[in-house]
């Protein structure tokens, strides 16, 4: 702290102040200029980030109505939530059924494609492919999802057309108990558009060419190099996609929101959408806050585990 007093000339009289509270006040006062720079940020963060987070946990113990009226009811919301075997627990299973395959797909497929682009000889082709990979990002997410709705259309859609070619009966893919979940997982096929491929490629680029070259001279084939050199070196990226995918996957209910409404029945219901419905369709803000808090605890747990894993090796995606 000493060098800090040197650049704060207003601090000349600090000797007469004893230690303790007064010196803290003095330090605070001396930092006033920096606090002015921080003031706008902390105004927004305290009011609009910290306050709602705490308010959410707090109100999960209340019967909190749409109107703002709140009555304390203890752990009733949680009791109701955890004993709900019709919607809530099945929705957690559904979440896993949708999220885990998507997670694996989004880690493996972009890696394969990244290797395919990376192993091309022509640099020009490499950069062209990298540009093309990003094209799907120019459509807003809502548009991409709605286009997939069209692809699944039982009358006009491409999937139905192909299905009919093989003599299948028309199926309403997203509205049929048998196909709704697989259809959601299949969305986005071939799952390569976006940034994952690029992040993998930049990881592959950072591996030293010498290691690769000497392995090749020792007679290692391309696949051998991929498994023994590339995979261990890009483990950081894999871990990043895994954790990030889990955290965003738990929160994602865009398909339910845009297309299925959790149906047919509760077949595609996920906890996030259940929370949305509780709050904005039934007006049960307290119950919704309990679901939100539950998801927060799960995500927090995953984040802490990831930090522990991260200590062994830095993630630099």
């Amino acid at each position, binding site marked *: 702290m000493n*060098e*800090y007093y040197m650049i704060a000339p207003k601090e000349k009289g600090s000797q007469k102040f004893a230690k303790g509270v007064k010196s803290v006040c003095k*330090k605070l006062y*001396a*930092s006033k*200029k*920096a*606090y002015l*720079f*921080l003031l*706008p*940020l902390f105004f*927004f*963060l305290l*009011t*609009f*980030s910290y*306050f*709602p*987070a705490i*308010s*959410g946990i707090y*109100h999960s113990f209340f019967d*909190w109505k749409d109107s703002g009226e709140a009555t304390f009811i203890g752990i009733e919301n949680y009791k109701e939530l955890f004993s709900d075997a019709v919607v809530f627990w099945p929705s957690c299973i559904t979440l896993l059924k949708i999220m885990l395959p998507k997670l694996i797909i989004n880690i493996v497929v972009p890696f394969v494609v990244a290797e*395919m682009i990376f192993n*091309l000889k022509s640099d020009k082709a490499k950069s062209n492919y990298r*540009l*093309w*990979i*990003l*094209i799907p990002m*120019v*459509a*807003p*997410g*809502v*548009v*991409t999802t*709605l*286009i997939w709705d069209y692809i699944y259309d039982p009358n006009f859609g*491409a999937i139905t057309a192909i299905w009919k070619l093989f003599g299948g009966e028309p199926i309403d893919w997203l509205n049929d108990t048998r196909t709704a979940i697989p259809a959601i997982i299949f969305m986005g*096929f071939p799952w*390569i*558009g*976006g*940034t994952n491929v*690029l*992040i993998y490629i930049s990881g592959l680029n950072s591996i030293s060419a010498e290691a690769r070259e000497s392995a090749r001279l020792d007679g290692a084939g391309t696949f051998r190099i991929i498994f023994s050199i590339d995979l261990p070196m890009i483990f950081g990226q894999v871990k*990043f996609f895994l954790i*990030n995918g889990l955290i965003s996957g738990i*929160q994602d209910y865009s398909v339910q929101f845009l297309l299925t409404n959790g149906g047919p029945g509760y077949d595609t219901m996920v906890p996030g959408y259940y*929370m949305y419905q509780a*709050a*904005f369709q039934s007006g049960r803000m307290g119950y919704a*806050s309990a679901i939100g808090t539950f*998801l*927060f605890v799960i*995500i927090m747990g995953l*984040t802490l585990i990831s930090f522990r894993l991260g200590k062994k090796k830095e993630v630099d*995606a």
Partner: protein
Amino acid sequence: MKKKISAGQVADHAILLMLLALMVYPLFMAVWCSFKSNAEFNLSKWYPTLPLNFENLFYAAEALYVFILNTILVGGAGTLGMLIVSSLAAYAFARMKFFGKNLLFMMVIGLMMVPAIMTLVPSFMLYKKMVGTDTYLILIIPIITGGSVFGVFLLKSFFEGLSESIFEAARIDGAGDLTCYWQICIRLSVPILTTLAIMQLSGAWNDYIWPMIAIPTDTMKLTIAAAIKKEFLSANTGSYPSLFAGYLISSVPLILLYVFANKFYVEGLTNAAVKF
């Protein structure tokens, strides 16, 4: 001398091209179908045809331009606010010494662990009380707040990387912190600020759940992605060419960014993916 092209390379190219074709086909199909009349669409939806029919696009542009303007207003104001708020704070964290710095920085970074889904409901209740639904502010403030955590994180490390000698020289010339902030940090970080701005703008462009909750009745204030879902979709049920035209119109600004600011756009996207 002719380079020898191995069979492996040819196969590699062939598979990649096939995957890319599968990837872009649905999007391209939506593009060419938006140039078809309903009759043409029923006959030939799988491939492009001439003549191009611009009616759908004019219709969609007319129906959607208000929402595009809304998004530019809301996203622009929110992004500008976010840039100011987070660059000021990043300057303090990177170049000033003050009491409680680590604690305050932890308070900022710690928010990355609070998932958006948890704060959705209580945020709505707070905004409803403080600024009211059906206002532009209820859309702008979350952009400032949500973006600034990552903004501080990114800008702090950039400002820290600037050479101390520039600042010393400025101080000798009598420059205070505000001058250092504005004349040095902001001037030198235009590229990274642009990247951050594009990230934030495309975030605002893509968001639909919050705008749909926050604007329950005054639908003319919706942003584009929300308007597509709430207004445009139900008004054009079954008429796929008009729908696709709407999708195309709503993508135009992002397409422009991709074409004219590709470097910043790609960086913004990759940053967004690294964002934790």
